[in-house]
């Protein structure tokens, strides 16, 4: 088994909400520290737990994504891991050179040139002058700041600053690399480059801790993920499972206040002769509920169980409409089918969606089943919640591939179908597929 590099045992950290009180507690804590005591593990007035009992271990070549809402304790955890602040309880043991990218602008002076700042930044990260000289070309090359090398950093765009900071950090060759949400400012091209660089570092057997709100990046880069909420670990495990669980929770939260996936919302024009009873999704062989995360290009399968309330023997259309979470229509697909059922029958229909042409983002799929020009048997405004992420890392690492997301064009009132669907497999072979 490879070498244990990061060992985090039951870390807790408390903070104070009130500034003045926090400063006084600070004075008191300094005094306690000098006397050799430990800060009381109980909460004092106006204090709260920013982190509670977080534990994990990382070995060489392993990677851990940390996800969670703003204020969940992610950055606090990183600061403790990097020894910037002390834990209130618990302990951290790190082996080897630890490099943390918590903020890229720390220590950067805007009046100085990029070159001067590379030296300062590199020295801060523990490189000697000689080391930096040796790596300067590689750093400049990676950061793509060429012509701006001798320009004061004040005149850099924020993206350029990020590129420079990241370039220096990865050229330090750490054993443990900790990256906080710093890449968010970079453009797509650089982010991809940064992801590849991290993947390469992982191959060289570093341990990586990666914080991001971009779940697709987390899933693409890390094997394991840790979901924090209110300072506590909600879930830890396989990266895509944790990200999916987190996404389901946050999607539910953004649609309704309950924090759960909202129940199916039937429209009032339906006849109710056929009712959607169950929805099951499947992505990469993992079965899930009505909320699903799928990376663009991946196949999403889902199965509808329809409960017949009356005798039906008719040709019908399945209509799937895609909306983003703001309610804008993003596309529509109509699929022919034939229903043959008596009251009480349960019919299942399996569909397959290729998401290759969708923008990354969160979508809601609405569903209707109706006869041509006739009544709608069923009408559900929120059949599925789908979060589409950009293509995953494995695809991006291949040099020369191009991101194949395309903009949607519906300016002429004609819907371009942004996703393609296979005909239902449990039904009779579909006669045709058409778009509305």
């Amino acid at each position, binding site marked *: 088994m490879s070498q244990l590099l990061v060992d985090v045992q039951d870390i807790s950290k408390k903070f104070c909400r009130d500034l003045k009180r926090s400063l*006084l507690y600070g004075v008191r804590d300094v005094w306690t520290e000098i006397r050799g005591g430990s800060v009381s593990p109980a909460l004092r007035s106006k204090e709260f737990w920013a982190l509670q009992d977080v534990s994990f271990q990382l070995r060489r070549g392993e990677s851990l994504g940390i996800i969670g809402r703003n204020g969940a304790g992610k950055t606090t955890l990183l600061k403790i891991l990097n020894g*910037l602040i002390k834990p209130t309880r618990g302990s951290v043991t790190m082996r080897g050179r630890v490099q943390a990218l918590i903020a890229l602008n720390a220590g950067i002076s805007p009046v100085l040139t990029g070159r001067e700042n590379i030296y300062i930044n590199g020295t*801060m990260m523990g490189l000697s002058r000689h080391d930096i000289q040796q790596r300067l070309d590689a750093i400049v090359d990676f950061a793509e700041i060429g012509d701006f090398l001798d320009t004061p950093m004040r005149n850099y765009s924020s993206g350029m600053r990020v590129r420079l900071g990241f370039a220096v950090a990865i050229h330090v060759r750490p054993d443990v690399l900790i990256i906080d949400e710093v890449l968010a400012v970079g453009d797509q091209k650089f982010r991809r480059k940064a992801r590849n660089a991290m993947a390469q570092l992982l191959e060289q057997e570093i341990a990586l801790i990666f914080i991001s709100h971009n779940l697709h990046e987390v899933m693409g880069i890390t094997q394991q993920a840790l979901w924090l909420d209110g300072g506590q670990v909600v879930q830890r495990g396989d990266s895509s499972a944790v990200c999916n669980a987190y996404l389901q929770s946050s999607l539910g939260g953004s649609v309704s206040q309950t924090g759960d996936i909202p129940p199916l919302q039937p429209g009032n024009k339906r006849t109710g002769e056929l009712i959607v009873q169950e929805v099951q999704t499947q992505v990469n062989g993992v079965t899930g509920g009505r909320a699903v995360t799928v990376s663009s290009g991946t196949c999403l399968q889902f199965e509808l169980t329809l409960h017949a309330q009356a005798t039906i023997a008719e040709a019908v259309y399945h209509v799937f409409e895609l909306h983003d979470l703001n309610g804008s229509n993003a596309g529509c697909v109509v699929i022919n089918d034939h229903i043959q059922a008596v009251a009480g029958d349960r019919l299942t229909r399996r569909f397959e969606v290729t998401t290759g042409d969708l923008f990354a983002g969160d979508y809601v799929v609405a569903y209707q089943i109706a006869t041509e020009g006739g009544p709608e048997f069923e009408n559900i405004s929120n059949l599925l919640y789908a979060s589409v992420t950009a293509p995953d890392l494995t695809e991006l690492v291949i040099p020369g591939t191009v991101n194949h997301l395309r903009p949607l064009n519906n300016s002429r009132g004609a819907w371009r179908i942004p996703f393609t669907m296979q005909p239902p497999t449990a039904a009779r072979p579909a006669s045709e597929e058409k778009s509305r």
Partner: protein
Amino acid sequence: MSNLPLPITSYSAHSEVRRPGRLLRQTLAGLWAARELAARLARRDLSARYRESFLGILWAVGPSLITVLTFSLLQQQQILNAQTGSVPYPVYVLFGTILWELFTGAILGTLNEVRGALTTLSKVNISREAFLISGLYKLLFDTTIKCLPLVILLLAYGVPLAASFPLALLPALGMMALGLLIALVLLPLLLLVQDIARLVTALLTFGLFVTPVLYPMPTTGFLSVLAGLNPVTPFLNTARAAFFGSDAGAPAGSEMTALVFGLALLPCLVIGLVLYRLTVPIVVERLGD
């Protein structure tokens, strides 16, 4: 590459004081790790400071020259009556001011340096000591520049220097070390409680007048008692005596006191540095962003 012995770092809730050996080692390692970074930080700040200014390094001398002008005017108008022996009054004041600013600069400079570094210290795990040293580098740089007008005045007035004048450097460094020690001990309070920082700044202004900077301390009366209690006084007197010779309005016999103080400062500074190491994470937690 795996399974080589790697450096192990650990952080826990327990006070570092419980492992004094380790703490001391870390402090010394921090100082050692700081050597290149401190120089780079100092160079960065100095070049940044003057890069956008037209008068450049003149700003390092300006304030002390104004002090010299002000007090020379008061002396010349006989509002002040300082007996400075064979040393012309402006030279006396400039010399005193340079040393005094070395002392106050060590306190306030360290405070500002660490305060300015909090953002960095809350994001990057680097030698905390580097900022202290870089602050001292900048202070020494400024002091060196301030010596230029002193040289000009010395030449203009044709003041003879004592043979022992290079030795004045030792008590001068003693003043800086004293300032640094005060800063290190008070740092958590100065950073966390702004009122105390303001109070200290005000006290330093008062200190200027109860230290023989602008005029020799009277030998009797309340001021003489205050000057006697003032730990800066022996250093300042010793520096003057070494630089100008005994006839410089400085009482003899400060040398021994300065020496004892100076030697006592060394272990105290080590303790101060250890305190600083203990303090930083707690202050960063409260004030860093």
